[in-house]
């Protein structure tokens, strides 16, 4: 009887104790780092390969399709991806389908400073930032057909895109060698595949929050998406591949502690559940 009470109590543990433990295991590794190695998976390798194999001079469209809620996972992915792109001799056109995209892209660009060494990329020639288009899937279709009239001005200077040399080679999705999209949900991969892959066969890679990972699996297997970074773990792997350690690698230890504690909670919860049932 008494033991069953213990299990019952353990099962009905005050949630605030769980919250407190989670706070502690996420704060501690930042103060006392463990530095566990991160093994690299095939998805991150495929993602990096898609960028490495771009021929010189090709145009890459990078779309920020996420809300602030996705910053935790997608910020490190975006920084690492743009770093990788800026170190390669390709032209980078940055856009956003989600309204939160431009200020986030701005944060990323402020951190990287593409005009300065080691990149030395010239704005308007090697890269450009065009800003946001409302309308979701409709906007993707419009961009695919005609960049110039869907995004007539750039984000920073509000000048006509026709004045920039980089835009002379980009009229429609047919001119795009690779689409990179950072996503938290809808509109996202489904819509890009429908509006860019199906009609124009634009190769695409995706950095997405973990929640989305299962739903893009069919596109990865079917070849519509060439590579993906699903979530923070993959971000850490990718940072190691390109040799620029950032927030992804910095989060590796916390990722371990938080996930292991999560699993422990599930195990304890199950033990309590079964013990209570047995002692009844």
């Amino acid at each position, binding site marked *: 009887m008494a033991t069953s009470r213990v299990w019952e109590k353990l099962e009905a543990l005050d949630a605030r104790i769980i*919250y407190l433990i*989670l706070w502690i295991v996420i704060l501690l590794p930042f103060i006392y780092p463990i530095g566990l190695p*991160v*093994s690299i*998976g095939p998805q991150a390798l495929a993602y990096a390969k898609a960028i490495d194999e771009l021929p010189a001079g090709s145009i890459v469209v990078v779309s920020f399709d996420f809300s602030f809620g996705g910053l935790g996972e997608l910020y490190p992915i975006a920084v690492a991806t743009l770093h990788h792109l800026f170190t390669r001799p390709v032209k980078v056109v940055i856009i956003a389908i989600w309204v939160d995209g431009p200020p986030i892209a701005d944060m990323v660009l402020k951190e990287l400073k593409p005009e300065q060494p080691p990149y030395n990329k010239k704005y308007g020639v090697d890269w450009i930032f065009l800003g946001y288009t409302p309308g979701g899937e409709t906007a993707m279709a*419009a961009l695919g057909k005609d960049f110039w009239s869907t995004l007539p001005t750039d984000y920073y200077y509000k000048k006509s895109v026709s004045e920039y040399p980089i835009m002379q080679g980009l009229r429609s999705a047919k001119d795009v060698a690779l689409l990179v999209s950072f996503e938290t949900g809808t509109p996202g991969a489904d819509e890009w595949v429908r509006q860019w892959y199906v009609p124009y066969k634009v190769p695409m890679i995706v950095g997405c929050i973990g929640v989305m990972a299962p739903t893009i699996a069919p596109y990865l*297997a079917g070849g519509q998406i060439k590579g993906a970074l699903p979530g923070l773990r993959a971000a850490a792997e990718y940072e190691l591949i390109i040799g620029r350690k950032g927030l992804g690698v910095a989060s590796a230890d916390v990722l371990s502690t938080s996930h292991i504690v999560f699993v422990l909670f599930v195990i304890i*919860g199950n033990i309590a559940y079964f013990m209570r049932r047995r002692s009844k």
Partner: protein
Amino acid sequence: MAWFRRVEIPIAITIIFALIQVIPYFVEMGTAVEAIQDKIVRWSLVVGTGALLVGLASLLLIHVPRVTRRRTYWGYSLVLIIVMFLMAILGLPFPELGLGLTGYWFKFLYDNVLVPLSSSLYGILAFYITSAAYRAFKARSLEAALLLISGTILVLRNAPLGTFLIPQIADLGDWLYNIPNMAINRAIMIGGGLGAMVLGIRVLLGYERGYLRGGE
């Protein structure tokens, strides 16, 4: 009912605008038609911008009466209204006046209010998912057990410590992701795609009116 109030009018409009996008996609009609098709897509984007007005208006409809009638939490509602207008006005596209998306104060509010709030609110789910896992993720049945085991493997796979202690967990996790997960998502995707197709067809046939409901 006056003829212009009839529901057939919006249905006809929906059908026409949908057909404009569908037919020239399959049937060769020349570049002139495609140019018009493209223009209509961009035009409909402009029409769509007004939808935000609805968001603004519905917030005002809820919160203005709360303030004027001094209902519970009316002070918070007042804060909401002020912040909303402040943000919208600071972001007006007049850089000459120091306003606009790249303006100093708009960015100030964005960086220091909107970003911390939005991501912290989503971050709260980390706590809920843990407490819910503790309470609810129990192997009550065979199906729940299967979900639990495969889920736990994936959780361990995403933890560097998990792959460090048990290197095989990476391969196992990837297999679960690439085979069963991919296959069921593919089947569900095909089913969902068919559902979306049939929804589109229902619209084209004028049978789908769900989106027009409400009002009277």
